[in-house]
């Protein structure tokens, strides 16, 4: 994180959660992913955090303990995912794709004791070898705003596509 930027100052502070601050946080996350700075991206997660992409069309309550997801990482596997993707032998991302993460319609849907539930829409483009893949849907976050800087406790990316047309989920959408 670039400590000189005003956004970084904002993020470095704990406490009061406003939509504007949440948006700054999410834009910062998107910028890290756009730049494939995925180790820094991983550092946004709190210890014990989870990262999930549930099956398409299965509703909000679906649980990786009883249903087959596309991705259901605990904290260790998320770290390993990042480690793997940075290797040249992660063939699906070598040579690396170019990505652009769009985030909008940000809403803080609950705020209890400084822990915020956040929903936003997303579109992520992945371009590689003349093919552009589009992923779209909704991100659902639980963010600990008491931590300084804020930390993600869980992130679930719910796809709206009725099947995974791009084929792979070899990036962080």
């Amino acid at each position, binding site marked *: 994180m670039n400590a000189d930027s005003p956004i970084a100052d904002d993020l470095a502070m704990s406490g009061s959660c406003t939509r504007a601050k949440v948006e700054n946080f999410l834009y910062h996350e998107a910028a890290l992913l756009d730049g494939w700075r995925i180790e820094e991206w991983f550092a946004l997660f709190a210890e014990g955090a989870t990262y999930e*992409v549930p*099956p*398409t*069309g*299965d509703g909000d309550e*679906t649980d*990786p*303990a*009883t*249903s*087959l*997801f*596309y*991705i*259901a990482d*605990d904290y*260790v*596997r998320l770290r*390993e*995912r990042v*480690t*793997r993707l940075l*290797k040249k*032998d*992660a*063939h*699906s991302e070598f040579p690396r794709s170019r990505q652009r993460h769009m985030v909008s319609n940000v809403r803080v849907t609950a705020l209890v004791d400084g822990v915020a539930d956040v929903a936003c829409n997303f579109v992520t483009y992945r371009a590689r*070898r003349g*093919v552009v893949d589009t992923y779209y849907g909704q991100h659902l976050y639980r963010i600990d705003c008491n931590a300084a800087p804020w930390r993600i406790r869980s992130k679930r990316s719910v796809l709206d596509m*009725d*099947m*995974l*047309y*791009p*084929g*792979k*989920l*070899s990036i962080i959408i």
Partner: protein
Amino acid sequence: MSIVAALPDSSGAYAGMIREDRERHLFRVARQAFTDEAVLEAERRQIFDRCWLYIGHGSEIAGNCDFLTRSVGGRELIFNRDRGGAVHAFLNTCPHRGATVVRESKGNALSFRCFYHGWSFNVNGRFASRFEEGNYGKDHYDGGCADLVQVPRLESYRDFWFINFDRNAVPLPDYLAQAKEFIDLVADQAEAGMEIIGSGQQYIIKANWKLLAENSVDAFHGLPTHSTYFDYLQNVGSLRMGKGFDASANRMTDLGNGHAVIEYGSPWGRPIARWVPAWGEETRDVVQRLRQGLIRRFGEVRGLRMAETSRNMIIFPNLVINDIMAITVRTFYPEAADRMAVSAWALGPCGEDAALRKLRLFNFLEFLGPGGFATPDDQEALENCQRGYRNMREAGWNDISKGMPRAGAPRNDDEEQMRCFWREWRRRMTAAA
């Protein structure tokens, strides 16, 4: 111009796409077989219209009046259970003027109703509308002309259901041949039976469908393609190559009719029933009990084989059952010569211990599926092959000769299993229309 179009007798062209020379230990496949739309059209007629194709598992329509819709072999089908529990497969098209009758992907219903003009059907397919007199005659009500059309053949083995569009096809058990024994090794894992877990994964691979048939039983690519997966196993303490890792289990079996299986000692954990340290001490006892249960039911040899060894099986043409770090059932169908739609499911024991079920799904995702640590690299490999075939005019042949000079049984990381597939492909493509 393609070979196919250039020759008046295309069956001769298909025979020429496979070159097997046992003396020189050469087995080559023309790359045109992966790229030519005319080949795909012939495959639709000669293979997909005549082979037994997997439609689904009985557990997916467990209750009476459960239904699901599925694309199989290029058709839109309804797979359902009627009020009495009998299983059906219907062509999902209205006998009136053709609309698909069922539009949800799954559900439970006492009847089906086409929304266009309102014709309705019992879940056993019989026409159920009662229009005012004068609208329709006897043939509609009693003659069957307004009933849903059944898929010509529907049979099952151990609750794996298959359909066939060829009325004269051999019975399913004959078709499956020795593959039945290996389906048993999966179906026998739980006394309560096995079930599909959740709704499965659906994704596209931009490559010819036969590349996935080959890849699904290819042990040769394991280390080079999936080194990052093995690094992961190592990092988290899931790699177990020492005690209990039995390289003598490694073999390949030709199951007949183009089906083949490779079998090998597992480097990874298996929820049935090979524990690895990464799962934590708390699961160790449960897994040990499962293992003892298998030995009690099937004896030391078969019990340990079910617990320890992994198996990748292709059932010709497009069903894969891989019993590896989890069990995946996978089928795929070509949308074009260079594009396939894949459906993959997780299979597990009915009534599985909740902690083990969670572990099974967690284990599945460490390797399998579009977000796993291995499958995306398989997809990448397949798509790279397809891209490489753009050069086929000058570089026209694939080589799958590995292991041909070997004396004795083929190894699991040889390519004999693919040669089994391709010999069957040639036999069917050159059979009389």
